[in-house]
């Protein structure tokens, strides 16, 4: 019997190549999406699972709160780890990890190197295997350094580097460190990432300062919540004097609360800010990607159901005959279900091949380094088998059920009425196209918002500005030498300095505290970036006293304080016993990326901290010369410093990397869903035209024109697409509005977007159907009638 079923299955497949191809291709695409997302999700939940102590590992987290706000942070400070270990028996060990940056000599060149500073038990507590070196002692010596294989090869060309020396820049000289261990490259599913580990050397005892990660290893039997509850008392006792001073001197009103978070929750955590963790993610990504993949698979399943149902009319005779000669309904269900399983297993095999092929592309898209082999285990196989069975059942059961229920007499004598209502097929087509339209609208809006983000005027001119890092704390004379060096080159128009980024600090204005962005700059800064002053004057030009006494604010600052004319007003840095006078107001500009609203800002020329970044405006016609000249001048002026440069506008675009990724993902999803929906529609149009061959013949004999036949065959489907469009609008509007609300600066959702998407959809559907309907309309009516 099985053999018999297989025979008829394959012969039917061969006979209906087009329709089988549509089904298999659609299902394979849908399954591929789901397989990729299964890999993605599996990787997400596999994060940090490789640590042998995983259930005992916790991260120290802190919460600062006052009446106005609560700030939850994944970071802590130097004294808390040792104090908690000393005070609590449940704490077995603590490891502090701090991200840092060093300049390391490689041959004659000095290169910037990201490092982490970690307590000496780092390799004993975490499971980062060492190829060479003793985990317990590699970081014991202050001048030791542990490299990963990759880093060892980078510096020495070999992983056999134990005992070799590396020179680290310290101010104007170098100190030598000895390689004591070689670690395996960090797995991609690790929250903690490193290339080079140096011993922890921070002896600060400040409690109210948060900048590093502390990981706590608890006893096997300890309850982390119980331990967490005891932390605050230790903090309050140990930091008593510091808190008292902060309250009196700095008007510090916040309450600090210490707690623990299981390390396994860190990767997908959203509650605590986690700048220190280098590989964090949000569960929402998994949800969105899973939903997209399921949508696409669902669209493919709908094709399957619709085509199978429409096609079953052609097999009505076979079904009728089988019933007449003694086939039970159950047997027919099995036969048709079996056919669906066969089709979906072909799709499944194709999908596995596709998954392997597109995985590299997907990895770039999703910012992952997934490997099929690495993630392959019994759970994955089980997940895939489950995916296969569910898909086959969803796609195959309903058609099998309907088809097996055909009345044998009706099917044998061609009396089948399937043309009439057919609500299910119509409903499914509407559903499919609603999803596709939803994704098209979303794509259009994501593109528009992305375009807006990357092209909106920032309030300053970032083009042809080269950014060069000169390093914090570089002496002013050296910088001046560099500046005068640069001035010789005519392709360089202006040179300004500032600290890179800004600090957030507080001061008092009109007796009230105000929080603002605090930036240091020189007199050329505003000119170089073409930031207009709306009131007052620039700093320093003719006023040397400005460097310590004056400041410029932005409009938001003035507005927030309530100043109409801020010139001459004072800002009181009470925590530093320093007052500055406002001498100018700049027009608001986007000193941060557009995901953030413009906040109050204060610009000073205070010499104390120096400047870390040069902004060099170059001639747009002579960029290459200028860039080359900058490099040679830099090397002359700062021989011991690593050189790197970036164009400011390129750097600014990088702020929208995540949006760019999602733009790609959404367009890809939209393309796939439209493609699968359309091939389904194509198949349906073929089958429905075949069904109506006789009708078309009669109409043509009676004098119907080609257009009228085409519109007859198209209008039904186009009506469905239209309904789908109307259904999709509110969902698309709601979802995109929700998404856009994340951006303080965003596009409005205009009706044109919907009209464009709707027209696109109708056009696509029409073209899809017209392949078939035009052919049918041009058919010789004699032929189609003779067949009856």
């Amino acid at each position, binding site marked *: 019997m099985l053999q018999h079923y297989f*025979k008829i299955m394959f*012969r039917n497949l061969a006979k209906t190549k087009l329709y089988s191809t549509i089904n298999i291709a659609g299902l394979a695409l849908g399954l591929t999406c789901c397989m990729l997302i299964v890999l993605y999700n599996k990787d997400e939940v596999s994060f940090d699972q490789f640590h042998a102590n995983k259930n005992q590992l916790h991260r120290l987290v802190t919460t600062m709160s006052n009446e106005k706000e609560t700030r939850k942070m994944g970071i802590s400070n130097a004294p808390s780890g040792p104090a908690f270990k000393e005070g609590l028996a449940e704490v077995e060990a603590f490891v502090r990890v701090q991200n840092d940056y060093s300049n390391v000599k490689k041959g004659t060149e000095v290169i910037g190197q990201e490092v982490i500073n970690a307590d000496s038990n780092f390799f004993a507590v975490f499971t980062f295997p060492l190829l060479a070196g003793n985990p317990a002692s590699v970081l014991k010596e202050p001048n030791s350094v542990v490299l990963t294989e990759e880093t060892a090869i980078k510096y020495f060309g070999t992983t056999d580097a134990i005992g070799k020396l590396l020179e680290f820049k310290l101010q104007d000289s170098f100190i030598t460190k000895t390689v004591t261990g070689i670690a395996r490259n960090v797995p991609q599913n690790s929250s903690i990432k490193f290339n080079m580990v140096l011993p922890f050397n921070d002896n600060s005892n400040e409690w109210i300062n948060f900048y590093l990660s502390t990981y706590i290893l608890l006893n096997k039997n300890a309850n982390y919540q119980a331990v967490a509850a005891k932390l605050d008392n230790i903090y309050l006792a140990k930091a008593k004097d510091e808190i008292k001073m902060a309250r009196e001197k700095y008007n510090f009103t916040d309450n600090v609360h210490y707690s623990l978070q299981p390390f396994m929750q860190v990767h997908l955590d959203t509650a605590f800010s986690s700048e220190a963790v280098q590989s964090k993610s949000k569960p929402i990504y998994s949800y969105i990607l899973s939903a997209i993949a399921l949508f696409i698979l669902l669209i493919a399943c709908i094709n399957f159901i619709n085509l199978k149902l429409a096609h079953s009319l052609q097999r009505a005779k*076979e079904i009728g*005959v*089988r019933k*007449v*000669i*003694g086939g039970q309904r159950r047997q027919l269900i099995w036969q048709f279900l079996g056919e669906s399983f066969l089709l979906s297993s072909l799709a499944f095999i194709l999908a596995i091949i596709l998954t392997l092929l597109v995985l590299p592309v997907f990895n770039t898209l999703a910012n992952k380094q997934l490997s099929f082999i690495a993630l392959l285990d019994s759970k994955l196989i089980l997940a895939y088998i489950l995916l296969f069975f569910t898909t086959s059942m969803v796609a195959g059961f309903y058609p099998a059920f309907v088809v097996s229920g055909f009345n*044998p007499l009706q099917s044998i004598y061609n009396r089948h009425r399937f043309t009439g209502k057919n609500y299910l097929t119509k409903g499914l087509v509407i559903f499919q196209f609603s999803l596709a339209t939803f994704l098209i609208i979303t794509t259009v809006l994501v593109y528009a918002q992305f375009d807006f983000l990357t092209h909106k005027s920032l309030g300053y001119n970032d083009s042809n500005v080269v950014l060069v890092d000169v390093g914090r704390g570089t002496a002013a004379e050296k910088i001046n030498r560099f500046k005068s060096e640069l001035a010789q080159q005519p392709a360089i128009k202006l040179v300004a300095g500032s600290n890179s980024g800004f600090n957030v600090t507080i001061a008092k204005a009109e007796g009230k505290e105000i929080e603002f962005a605090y930036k240091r700059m020189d007199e050329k800064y505003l000119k170089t970036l073409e930031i207009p002053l709306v009131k007052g004057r620039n700093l320093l030009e003719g006023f040397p006293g400005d460097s310590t006494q004056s400041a410029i604010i932005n409009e938001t600052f003035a507005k927030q304080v309530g100043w109409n004319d801020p010139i001459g007003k004072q800002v009181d840095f009470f925590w530093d016993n320093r007052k500055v006078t406002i001498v100018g107001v700049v027009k608001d500009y986007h000193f941060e990326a557009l995901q953030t609203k413009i906040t109050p800002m204060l610009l000073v020329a205070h010499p104390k901290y120096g400047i870390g970044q040069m902004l060099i405006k170059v001639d747009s016609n002579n960029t290459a010369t200028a860039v080359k000249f900058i490099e040679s001048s830099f090397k002359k002026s700062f021989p011991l410093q690593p050189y790197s440069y970036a164009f400011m506008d390129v750097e600014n675009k990088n702020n929208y990397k995540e949006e760019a990724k999602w733009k790609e993902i959404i367009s890809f999803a939209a393309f796939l869903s439209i493609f699968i929906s359309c091939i389904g529609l194509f198949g349906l149009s073929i089958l429905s035209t075949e069904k109506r061959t006789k009708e078309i013949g009669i109409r043509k004999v009676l004098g119907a024109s080609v257009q009228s036949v085409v519109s007859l065959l198209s209008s039904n489907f186009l009506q469905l697409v239209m309904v789908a469009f109307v259904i999709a609008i509110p969902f698309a509007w709601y979802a995109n509005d929700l998404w856009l609300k994340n951006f303080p600066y965003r596009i409005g959702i205009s009706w044109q977007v919907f009209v464009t998407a709707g027209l696109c959809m109708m056009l696509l559907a029409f073209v899809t159907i017209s392949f078939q309907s035009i052919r049918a309309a041009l058919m010789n009516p004699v032929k189609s009638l003779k067949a009856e």
Partner: protein
Amino acid sequence: MIQLKKSYKYYNTGSRKAYVLSDISLDIAAGEFVSIMGPSGSGKSTLLHILGLLEEPNDGEYLFLGENVSHLTEKKRTELRRNQIGFVFQAYHLIDELTVYENIETPLLYKGLNSSERKSRVAELLDKFNIVGRKDLFPSQLSGGQQQLVGIARAIAGNPKVIFADEPTGNLHSEQATEIMELFKKLNEQEKVTIVQVTHSEHNATYGNRIIRLKDGLVVQ
């Protein structure tokens, strides 16, 4: 063997009932070769379908092999069709995707015969109908007469007690038709298979030993 008592078949068209068969009573004994005749629309086919358990009468009683089958479940009726009844159609109704051999084998599969039993039975039929050489051809590669031969082979494959044939020669030219009718006659006489055929042709009806004439849903003779 077949007893139909006071049976009616009607369809609801709007508010009125359109009667296809009215007050039909008939008896067919085992071994008979009966021809049902009548003009188009007289209810011949419907009667055949009722007898063949493909349709149910709205009213009346039907005893098949002494068993009341008026209100059987679909499953039971399928079982009876599978084991006791063979069908032959005007348009042959072979399964297009199956070869001659496989078409004949299909009812045996549903009957649950094992592979060697099926093989010998199909071989026997192919031999008997002289179509061994065509066993691997598909229906589309056969002439109408050849297709109908396969249809009959399929109908008798499961050793049914009765064959219902709905205008079995309606699509054939006279030479082929004669061949088919001779075959029916042989089956009836030599293998004692009961045959009930619907036909338009007085000539074909003469192959049988009784004619039931219908007009407007009534037995007239």
